[in-house]
C-alpha cells in the first residue's frame, strides 16, 4: 500500500498483510508528531507528484535491497501530538535488507518528496524548514551521504 491520506493507518493489519512465504524480517518505521511545545502539526502535499515519487522510491528500494514488500503511508492534514505521520513497513528475507531498505526509504522521502509540515505552536505557527535546497529527488545514498 502506497498512500497519502488524512486517515490514520492500521499498522497491525499492514504488518499481517506484508508477511509472505519468504519473509524473515519486517522493519516498521513510524514517524510521530513529537511534543516540541506545539499544539498540532499541519501537513500538506503536492499529492499527485508526492504519490508518484513514493511509488518510485518503493520500487527502487525493492530492487536495490531485494525487498519482498514495501508499504508507505504518509498522512496529511492536522495531526495532534502522538499521532502517526509516516508509516513505512518493509518486508525482506533477512534483517540486513529490511533495515537498509527502511532507512533508504525514509531518507529518500525527506530528501525530495513534496510534502511540508507546519507546526501550530503556542507562541505562533512555523513552517518546518526543508532539508535540502532544490529538493532534487531521491539521491540519498545508502552510506548516509547526499
Amino acid at each position, binding site marked *: 500500500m502506497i498512500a497519502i491520506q488524512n486517515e490514520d493507518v492500521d499498522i497491525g493489519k499492514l504488518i499481517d498483510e506484508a508477511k509472505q512465504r519468504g519473509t524473515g524480517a519486517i522493519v516498521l518505521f513510524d514517524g510521530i508528531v513529537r511534543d516540541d511545545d506545539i499544539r498540532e502539526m499541519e501537513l*500538506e502535499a503536492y499529492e499527485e*507528484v508526492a504519490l508518484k515519487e513514493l511509488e518510485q522510491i518503493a520500487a527502487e528500494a525493492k530492487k536495490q535491497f531485494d525487498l519482498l514488500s514495501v508499504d508507505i503511508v504518509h498522512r496529511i492534514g492536522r495531526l495532534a501530538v502522538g499521532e502517526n505521520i509516516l508509516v513505512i513497513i518493509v518486508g525482506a528475507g533477512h534483517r540486513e535488507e529490511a533495515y537498509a531498505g527502511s532507512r533508504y526509504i525514509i531518507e529518500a522521502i*525527506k530528501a525530495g*518528496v513534496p510534502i511540508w*509540515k507546519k507546526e501550530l505552536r503556542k507562541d505562533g505557527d512555523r*513552517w518546518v524548514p526543508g*532539508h535540502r*535546497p532544490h*529538493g532534487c529527488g531521491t539521491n540519498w545514498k545508502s552510506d548516509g551521504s547526499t
Partner: protein
Amino acid sequence: MSVKIRFFARFRELLGTDVIAEFAPGTSLTGLIKQVAGKNKEGYDAIFDENGTFREFVILMRNTKRVDPAESGNIMVTDGDEIAVFPPVAGG
C-alpha cells in the same frame, strides 16, 4: 491561453492555490511566475530576490517535472500547463 499555477506551503499562504493565469504568447516560465507573484509583494519577495532572480531554495515544476529555476527564463509556457512553485520539502 491560460495555465494553472500551484503554490504550496508558505507560498500558498501568501499567493493562493490553484491560480489560473492568462498569459501572452512568448511568456517565459519566469515571466509568468513574476506576473502572478507580483500581485502580492510579500509573496513576490518570498520567491524572488532584489534582482528579480529566484531565491536559491525555490523549487519549480512544470507538468509535474522539475525545472531548473536558472533555465526557466528560456522556457516558454504553453496553454494548459500546470506550474508548481514551492519551498524546500519537509516531509517524513
